[in-house]
């Protein structure tokens, strides 16, 4: 059992369907060209996260990275596919076991204000879940909350305050304290530092790294910011329109990217080391996930696209030890 990866996703798919309303159904009966709209937010994704790893999940808007994160955290059920946690299918678990498993994965959200109940005091935000789940009894409550707050870098003296009395960075710390209060071993961070100022962002990133060491945590770190992901992750997964296009350890992704999308993404990122230079340009826009292009999703924007890319979906396969990429060019 111990060899099983902490998290394994097998062919995870999530579709969002918009059902036709009454008028739409009648119009369809009468032969009007209306169809139900289906968004393939996540399309057959396989992903493995080992214990103690930080996996960065990168992509632009609409690539499905947040949907994937929500499925991992158990907030959203997948349409198809299985999620294995420590080798056991989480759908097969029931009762106390399922609850236990759910607690072990926690999520930290982008907007620290929208994810905190404005009418609850910090002590209740942090302490409610462990109390409900029976992790502590009444007498230990105060000490437990103090400890959680201190660990996230908050002064326990503020525990009777409300979220609006805190700054953005402190609110994010409350979100972190709340997530860690139920003693999880796996944390999904969805754009957890995107809304913060640079100097505050650095504080929170340092906190994440400290907590990882202290509590032996595993992270799935979702971000659009390649600089942050490069800084924090051991391994990076790149998504484009619902599919994983490349996956490798951080060093490899940033030094020897294989997929044309990864390469153009890296070229587009402004870096503080690059001065007064011509910005390189990927042509075109991100297509709508409602109507993705056939074949390889990236082919309309790809400088190296061939005939085959228009018809056949490239498979994600190993091209070097530890590096997987989904591109037909690797077959040549």
């Amino acid at each position, binding site marked *: 059992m111990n060899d099983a990866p902490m998290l394994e996703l097998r062919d995870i798919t999530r579709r969002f369907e918009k059902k036709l309303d009454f008028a739409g159904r009648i119009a369809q009966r009468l032969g009007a060209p209306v169809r139900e709209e289906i968004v393939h937010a996540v399309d057959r994704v396989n992903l493995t996260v080992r214990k103690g790893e930080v996996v960065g999940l990168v992509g632009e808007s609409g690539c499905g990275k947040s949907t994937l994160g929500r499925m991992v955290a158990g907030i959203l059920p997948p349409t198809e596919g299985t999620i294995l946690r420590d080798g056991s299918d989480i759908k097969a678990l029931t009762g106390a076991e399922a609850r236990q498993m759910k607690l072990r994965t926690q999520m930290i959200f982008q907007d620290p204000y929208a994810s905190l109940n404005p009418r609850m005091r910090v002590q209740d935000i942090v302490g409610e879940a462990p109390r409900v789940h029976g992790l502590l009894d009444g007498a230990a409550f105060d000490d437990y909350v103090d400890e959680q707050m201190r660990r996230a870098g908050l002064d326990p003296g503020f525990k009777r305050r409300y979220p609006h009395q805190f700054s953005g*960075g402190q609110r994010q710390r409350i979100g972190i304290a709340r997530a860690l209060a139920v003693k999880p071993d796996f944390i999904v961070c969805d754009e957890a530092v995107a809304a913060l100022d640079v100097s505050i962002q650095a504080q929170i990133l*340092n906190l994440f790294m400290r907590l990882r060491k202290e509590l032996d945590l595993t992270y799935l770190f979702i971000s659009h910011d390649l600089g942050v992901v490069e800084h924090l992750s051991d391994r990076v997964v790149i998504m484009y329109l619902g599919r994983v296009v490349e996956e490798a350890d951080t060093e490899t992704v940033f030094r020897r990217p294989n997929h044309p999308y990864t390469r153009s993404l890296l070229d*587009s990122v*402004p870096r503080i080391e690059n*001065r007064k230079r011509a910005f390189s340009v990927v042509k075109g826009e991100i297509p709508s996930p409602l109507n993705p292009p056939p074949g390889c999703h990236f082919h309309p924007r790809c400088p190296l696209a061939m005939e085959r890319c228009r018809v056949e979906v490239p498979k994600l396969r190993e091209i070097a030890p530890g590096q997987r990429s989904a591109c037909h060019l690797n077959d040549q």
Partner: protein
Amino acid sequence: MTAPTLEVRDLQTHFFTRAGVVKAVDGVSFSVGRGKVMGLVGESGSGKSVTGFSIIGLVDPPGRIAGGSILFQGRDLAKLSEEEMRDLRGNRIAMIFQDPMMTLNPVLRIDTQMIETVKAHKKVSTEEARQRARDTLGMVGIPSPDERLKAYPHQFSGGMRQRVAIAIALLHEPQLIVADEPTTALDVTIQGQILAEVQKLCATTGTSMIWITHDLSVVAGLADDIAVMYAGRIVEKGAVSEVLDKPLHPYTHGLIGSVPSRNKRGEALRQIPGMTPSLLNLPPGCAFRARCPRASESCLAEPVMAEILPGREARCIHPHLDASEAA
């Protein structure tokens, strides 16, 4: 040496609220040369956007420009009447906002909005105005501008909308564009496209630009000069390469250390402790004092902006001068 397109001297924009006077911009001075891009960098609440709004005359009550001058081609914008300002705005000076929907009216077609803008400042026929609108859309890289003119804003993607907003700003070939975080809401590949477009435009038309952002990496690639703001004041300014390689002010130093970059992978980031102070009751002396590792007793006196190295100004009495301490 020609006169700069814009020269801001000791600008003070204050907000007179019930709780007290908020000095959002307190004694800001800088200048932008012809065809140059000036990066105005700071965190939220540093006064960078209010500086931009002051230049274009869009500060709403309870805020007003309480002092200083904004010299644009020899005229002081701070002293112009609303009528005179309206004549300049959108004509010689234009602004690009973070959210393009602040520029675009959602219920009007793009052509209506662009033709209206052209005719507001120029006596031309509708046909000529449409031609101008079409050409400008093409210039910012919008494919098939003829058809796109007939579309409504909601039919465009975020990146395309921002291009339309930029096109509207360019309609009258302004001498100065104030861009307030125009690419912050966009995806990286789209941001790259817009930045490339802007670079090309500044180089070909000689338009000067003030690029307001919190993102040091964007400024690094785009701007010629940089001014770093903190708590309503400029704390450091100079050429981009100089400031980013050898920051003088401890705040700039800390800010650069906070940016994750490839040289620092896996290490703890150099963080700035504490948070930005409230502008409502700023303590006397240097505003950064409480967060500064180099602060001393003498920082209780307000430091002045001084030329510390040739061409390099900073507002600090303990600047980082030693090369070995460089970021």
